[in-house]
């Protein structure tokens, strides 16, 4: 399965990723439609914050969503936010996500959908601050072998 890896110290702040993301997700171009956001705290700080979903194995928003609008696709492992089931103003997912991956898209929250596994943002990131990497979701059940019975 695939997820985005962010190497924020490689980011030059060009926001080309935002542009192509926004262009790819809406017929008319508005940066508000971008599923990822680049920002800079102060002018003299050349490190940029890259806020985007990284398909975390343990996803706190998934547990926080009260309506089931946020789900994980079984086959690809990609988190999906269904706008039809996402009530306006709830934002519990956005509060639970410590990566700031949920963005206000103008008509409700929006989330990275990995563009079907070939994200344009990765393609235009020359410094490779954004990379696509493979991972395995752990199988269901206990993560570690059952403890040996205590000798006592």
């Amino acid at each position, binding site marked *: 399965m695939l997820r985005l890896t962010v190497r924020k110290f490689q980011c*030059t*702040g*060009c*926001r*080309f990723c935002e*542009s*192509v993301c*926004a*262009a*790819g997700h809406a*017929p*008319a*171009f*508005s*940066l*508000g439609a971008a599923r990822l*956001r680049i*920002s*800079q*705290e*102060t*002018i*003299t700080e*050349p*490190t940029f914050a890259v806020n985007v979903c990284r398909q975390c194995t343990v996803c706190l928003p998934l547990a926080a969503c009260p309506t089931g609008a946020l789900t994980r696709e079984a086959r690809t492992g990609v988190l999906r936010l269904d706008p039809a089931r996402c009530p306006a103003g709830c934002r519990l997912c956005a509060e639970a996500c410590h990566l700031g991956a949920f963005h206000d898209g*103008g008509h409700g929250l929006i989330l990275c959908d990995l563009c079907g596994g070939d994200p*344009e943002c990765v*393609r*235009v990131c*020359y*410094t490779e601050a954004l990379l696509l990497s493979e991972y395995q979701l752990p199988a269901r059940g206990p993560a570690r072998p059952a403890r040996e019975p205590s000798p006592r």
Partner: protein
Amino acid sequence: MNKLATIDLDRRQVTVEEIAPDLRRRFLGGRGINTHLLFHAVDEHTDPLGPGNVLLFGTGLLTGLPWVGASRSSFSAKSPETGHLGDSAGGGHFGAEVRFAGFDHLVLRNRAAEPVYLWVHDGQIELRDARHLEALTLTDTQDAIKHELGDTRVQVAAIGPAGRRCVRWACIMHTMADAWGRTGMGAVMGSKNVWAIAARGGATLPVADPAALAKVTRTHYEQITRSKGFLATSSYGTLVRLNNTRTQGYEGGFNHQRNMTELPGELDADVFLDRYEIAKTACFNCPTHCRHVHEVTLRDGTRRRGGGPEYGGAGGWGSQCGAADWRTILEAWDYCNDMGLDVLSATAYTAWLMELYEKGVIGEADTGGLSLRWGDHDAIMGVLRQTVERRGIGALIAEGWMHAARAIGRGAERFFDHVKGLSIECDDVRGHRAQVLGLATSSRGACHLRSRYTLEEFALPSSVTEALIGVPIPSDAASYHNKEHATVWTENVCALADALGACKFLSKWLSTGLLGVDEFRDAVEAATGMRFTTEELVRVGDRIYNMERLFLVRQGMSRKDDAPPAKFYEPWTHGPRAGTRVEREPFEALLDRYYALRGWDGDGIPTPEALRALGLEREGALVASARGPGRC
């Protein structure tokens, strides 16, 4: 979208109008539409620092769109430094954000009663009190405004203390080192009592054919990142030129008295990268990330961070002022950026004063006690500080070099290297004929960004240049043959790029592998639906250039002003091409051929036929009535 806002600062009124499709088609945007607006908004009598001048801001036709390097925008006004055409393009994220805020062009008229900054957001423009910014440097000004507006994604273009005090060569800055530098646009902004423009918005920009634009963008991205020039520009930025000019003998040393300084090896781009660079940043949508971020320990032990430098500062303080010492260069560079002084003018003025001091034209009585010895750190910083504080010699040069030369007397003006009142860049291109011609004819005065045929330095086979320009250009830089074609092509393509908001660092201005007019045409068609042939697009550049020429003619300029700096007629003293100089006769013949190619008469005045072909007969008639018969 497609909105032009006029802000009457005196009455605090904002009026918004649509940009007519015809104007778009003829001038596209950015520098193009700015030039059109400026021509009609001021005249030959307008005082550049008076309320009658206008400050125009224009985003390029493609600025802000999802296309490679769509970042550039232009400020234009009548220049307080040169007294004629003022125009300066800059990158960063500001132009794109103004578009996202809902505007393409801003026109600032009159003068605000109290210092203000403009808050441009979501289709609205507010004038906000700026008095609390008075003590702040440029980076602090931008951070303070972002903090005040509560959004780190606000983009700010601001002036510093130099602009607020109307130093005639003050610039407008954005981030740490993006500048609209030349021709004193910061002084015009200061004279209007506008200290900054902040922008933020979520506007939707229409794209004619999103799928086609995505395809074009992907193709252009691949073309740029696979080109030979890309590795050099993305590692060194403009500093790539520092090493070229030093080793090939056209570096411009000690106020253009020598073409090779033989200063120590410290003055090398790799030394800068190794010791001082900590990061790279990029303009909007640009993979090249040519902007350096540096950290340096100053002489007083303080450690500071800054953006840049570019070649103009490194060569300017390095070889031109003789400071082969990165710490001095970076301190001077950062000081200029903090205060909002144009670096190219700052280096030219300092080198000029140093030569005057060396020749005994000025002494310590004139310089406010400074010993202006070549390469001296305290001398360089002293000149800059005095300028911002308007005292000593700084009080004179803050009013521009022409004023300073008159006040000093004793033939001081002969030592200042300029074209049409604007200083030349630090490099010394007298052996490159198309570049000399470009310097001489450049519409805002000496300029490498609107008329330098950069390709001349690469000794390209004439078959390559023929495919590009339509006429074979000799690979020998010292040849005068056919060079008028190279200069006209460069001037038209640069004007076109400035109107589109495209960066010349990603274009064939720099390297044949990068984007050319064909690529611009594809992007324009996909993004806006406007169909042009390649020739028609080049003609837009031609139209802009002729419009600028009409502006100059109205100011009383002609052939007498199309002259390279006097020092260029002296031979190069050092290096592999020692002895090379501009020869008067072949140069004048080259200028004649250039005028003929442009359709201008022997005195450099556009002929009525040439103007009619470009649809500029109305402007030509205006100039003719202002200047008398025979002048268009």
